[in-house]
C-alpha cells in the first residue's frame, strides 16, 4: 500500500532535517521526501501540526516469550511497541529457555516471524542458562543474527569469564551489553539505600552495587578493546565513570530509562510496586545527574527496559513484588511531556535519543527518514493529552509507573516496514 504523509513536521537527526515536508511510502520503503509531493496514494495522512519521526528503536525490551507468555508475548509486546511509536526492539535473552544457543535463537526468530508487529532484533546470553559459568557460542549466535550479548537481569560475577567474554565478543563483532549489579552488595535490597529505605523500613540497594560493576566492566572492556554498552544507568557515580571512559576514548555507550529521568525514590512513599525496579529509583541528585548526562551525550540513548509482570506478581507484599515496569507505550509520551512540554528538550533531541542513537549503537539501518530506507515512521501529535490507564495498554501487563498520569504528546500513527502498524483513530486518513 502506498502512503502519503502530508505536511508533517519532519525530524530526522541522522540527516539534520527539521522542516515541514511530505513523505511518500511505496512498497515498504520511503520513496520520497520533500515538499508538495503530488502522488496518488491509497492512504493519505494529513500530518499538519504533527511531528513525524523515524520509527523509534528501543534497545532494552523484555518480550517474555518463550516461557512467560502470561506476562507478555512477542505479539502483544510488539503491539505495545508500535502503539508507543517503537518500530524496532532489541529483545533481551532472559526468557525460558534463555536465548543461549543457535537453536533457541532460531526458535525465537520463528515466533517473531509469525507474530511480531514490529522489527525484533535479538540479544543472546553471555553464559549458558545465564548461570554465569560457561560462555555461549558467540560466533554461532552472531551467525544466526544476534546483535549483542548480555546476561541482562544479572551480571557475570566471574571477572575472568567476563574478560573472556569481552575478548570473544570483540573477535566476533558482537556488542556486549552490561547489566551492572554486584549481588553481594545489592543482596536482598528492594529500593535505593538511603532516607527512603530508612523511612519505609525496606532493605536498601547501595549505589556501589551498580557503579563498582560499571567500573569493572569498563576496565575489562578497555583491556580487551571491546565495545561495551552499559544498560539502565541509575546513579551519578556510574555517569561519572562512563564520562571518564569516554574522555579516554574508550568505545562505550550507555542507556538510561525514562523512569530514572522522571521519578525518584520518593515515589515509593506509598509502596506502589509499579515504582519497584532494578536498579532502583535513586535520589533527586542522581536524577539530575542523569538529565545532565543525557544533555551532555554521556548517556547516548533512552531505552524502556520494558519488563511486564502479572498483577499477581506485583500486587503483593512489597518485598515479594517482582522488579520491573512496562515502558514501551509510555517512553515517547513520557519524555515528551516531561521535557519537551517544559522546553528542556527538542523533538530533534528526542528523536536522536530514542531512534538514531540506539540504531547506531546496534549497527542497524534504522533511525533515518531518507528515500530508499525501510519505511519505519511515527506520527506524533505533540499537543494531545491523554491519561495512562490499565485498559489502554496493548501490553499484556499493566505495571506502569505512569498509571493515572496525564501525558502530553500522543502517538497518532506508526508505520512499520511501510505498513500501518498502529493508528490512534479507526478512520485515520
Amino acid at each position, binding site marked *: 500500500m502506498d502512503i502519503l504523509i502530508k505536511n508533517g513536521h519532519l525530524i530526522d537527526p541522522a540527516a539534520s532535517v527539521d522542516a515541514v515536508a511530505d513523505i511518500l511510502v511505496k512498497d515498504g520503503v520511503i520513496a520520497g521526501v520533500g515538499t508538495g509531493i503530488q502522488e496518488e496514494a491509497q492512504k493519505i495522512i494529513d500530518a499538519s501540526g504533527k511531528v513525524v519521526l523515524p520509527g523509534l528503536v528501543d534497545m532494552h525490551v523484555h518480550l517474555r516469550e518463550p516461557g512467560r507468555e502470561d506476562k507478555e508475548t512477542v505479539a502483544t509486546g510488539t503491539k505495545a511497541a508500535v502503539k508507543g511509536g517503537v518500530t524496532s526492539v532489541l529483545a533481551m535473552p532472559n526468557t525460558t529457555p534463555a536465548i543461549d544457543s543457535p537453536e533457541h535463537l532460531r526458535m525465537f526468530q520463528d515466533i517473531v516471524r509469525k507474530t511480531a508487529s514490529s522489527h525484533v532484533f535479538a540479544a543472546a546470553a553471555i553464559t549458558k542458562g545465564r548461570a554465569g559459568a560457561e560462555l555461549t557460542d558467540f560466533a554461532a549466535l552472531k551467525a544466526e543474527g544476534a546483535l549483542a550479548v548480555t546476561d541482562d537481569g544479572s551480571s557475570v560475577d566471574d571477572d575472568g569469564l567476563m574478560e573472556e567474554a569481552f575478548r570473544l565478543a570483540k573477535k566476533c563483532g558482537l556488542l556486549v551489553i552490561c547489566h551492572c549489579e554486584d549481588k553481594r552488595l545489592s543482596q536482598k535490597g528492594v529500593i535505593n*539505600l*538511603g532516607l527512603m529505605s530508612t523511612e519505609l523500613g525496606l532493605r536498601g540497594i547501595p549505589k556501589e552495587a551498580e557503579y563498582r560493576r560499571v567500573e569493572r566492566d569498563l576496565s575489562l572492556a578497555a583491556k580487551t578493546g571491546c565495545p561495551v554498552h552499559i544498560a539502565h544507568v541509575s546513579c551519578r557515580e556510574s555517569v561519572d565513570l562512563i564520562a571518564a571512559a569516554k574522555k579516554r576514548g574508550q568505545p562505550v555507550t550507555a542507556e538510561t530509562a525514562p523512569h530514572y529521568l522522571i521519578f525518584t525514590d520518593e515515589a515509593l512513599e*506509598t509502596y506502589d510496586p509499579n515504582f519497584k525496579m532494578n536498579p532502583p529509583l535513586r535520589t533527586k541528585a542522581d536524577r539530575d545527574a542523569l538529565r545532565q548526562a543525557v544533555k551532555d551525550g554521556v548517556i547516548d540513548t533512552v531505552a524502556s527496559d520494558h519488563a511486564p509482570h502479572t498483577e499477581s506478581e506485583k500486587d503483593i507484599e512489597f518485598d515479594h513484588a517482582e522488579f520491573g515496569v512496562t515502558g514501551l507505550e509510555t517512553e515517547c509520551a513520557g519524555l515528551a511531556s516531561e521535557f519537551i512540554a517544559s522546553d528542556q528538550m527538542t523533538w530533534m533531541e528526542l528523536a536522536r535519543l530514542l531512534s538514531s542513537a540506539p540504531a547506531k549503537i546496534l549497527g542497524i539501518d534504522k533511525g533515518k527518514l531518507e528515500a530508499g530506507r525501510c519505511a519505519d515512521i511515527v506520527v506524533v501529535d505533540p499537543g494531545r493529552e491523554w491519561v495512562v490507564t490499565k485498559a489502554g495498554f496493548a501490553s499484556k501487563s499493566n505495571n506502569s509507573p505512569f498509571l493515572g498520569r496525564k501525558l502530553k504528546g500522543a502517538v497518532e500513527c506508526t508505520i512499520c516496514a511501510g505498513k500501518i502498524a498502529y493508528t490512534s483513530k479507526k478512520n485515520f486518513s
Partner: protein
Amino acid sequence: MNMSRNPSWERKDLLGLKELSAEEISLVLSTAESFKEVIGRPIKKVPALRGKTIVNLFYEPSTRTRISFEIAAKRLSADVINIATETSSVRKGETLIDTGRNIEALKVDMIVMRHSYSGAAVMLARHVGASVVNAGDGWHEHPTQALLDIFTLKEKLGRIEGIHVAIVGDIAHSRVARSDIWGLTKLGARVTVCAPSMLIPPCIGEMGVSVTHDLQEALAEADAVNVLRMQFERDSGDAFPQQLEYFKNFGITEERLKKAKKNIIVMHPGPINRGIEMSSEVADGANSVILEQVTNGIAVRMAVLFLVSQAAENRKTRRTKSAKTESQVIAPGSLIGTPANSLLGKPVNT
C-alpha cells in the same frame, strides 16, 4: 500548634504517624484520656462501637498487641474475631489482598493487622473499603505503640514539646523507633537514637533526630529513654552485634541511670529481655513505666478504634445526606455520655 476548634479525624485508616499532623496526634491523645477514665471504672465497657465487627488479622505472632487491641475493642462493645496466620506461606497461599477482600465480604468494619513485611498495611488499606489499623508492619511503623509511648510520656511529664527522648537499641529493624520518631518530633520533642553503628539505618538524621553510639551521651540530657527489644535470634543475614558485647555497651543498668537525670523515665515496648537490653533492677525499678504503658495501650487503642470508626460513620452520613446538611462530627468523649452512659451511671465531661 493550634488545637482550637473542632479538631476532627477524617482518615479511613491509621497506617502510621508519618502521615499524621500534630493536631491529629493530639486528638488521639485527648480522646485516649477520656477512655483511660472509662477503663478505670468498675464496669469498663461503653457502647461506642456496638454492632461493629473488628478482625484482628495477625500474620506475626504477637500476644500483647493482639490482646490489647482485643480488650480495647471489647471495651467499646465491638465484636472481635482473631485470625492468626503464618507469613511463611505468603507466596503459596491466598494473597494478602484476597484475604482482605474476603474479610471485607464478611461485612467487617475494621481490620487490625500485624504483618512482618513493611508496607503491608498500606497495601491492604488501598485495596479494601474497611478501615485498616496498622498493628505493626515489618520495620516500617507501629503507630499505636508510639501513641501509647507518647501518651505515657505526656501523662508523666505534662507535655511533649521540648522534652528530650533517647531511643536505644536496634533502630534499623524497629517499627517502634520509626513511629516514635515521627510522633515525638511532630509534637516538638527532641529525639536522640543510640545504637551500635550497624543498627543505625542510613540518613536517619534527616528524619530530625540526633545520632550517637555512646549510651552515656544519649542518656545525659534525656527526660526519658525508650529501650527497644533486641532480637538476637533474628535470622535475616544482616550484621548483628554479639549479645554480651551489646549489654556491656548498650544495656540499661542502674549504674548508667545514676549518671542520667534523676527522674528519667524508662520505657520498653515489651516483651523485655532481662539482662540483654536492660537489667532486671531497671525493669522493675522506680523509673520504669513499662506496666503503665501496657495499661495506657488499651486507652490509646480504644481512641484509635473509636476515631477511625467515627470517621467511617461520618463518611456514610455524608454520602447519604444531601449536600446541604452539615456532616455529623461527634466530639471525642461525647459518645461516652450517650444514653448508654446513664446505665453506667457516670457521665463524662471532656
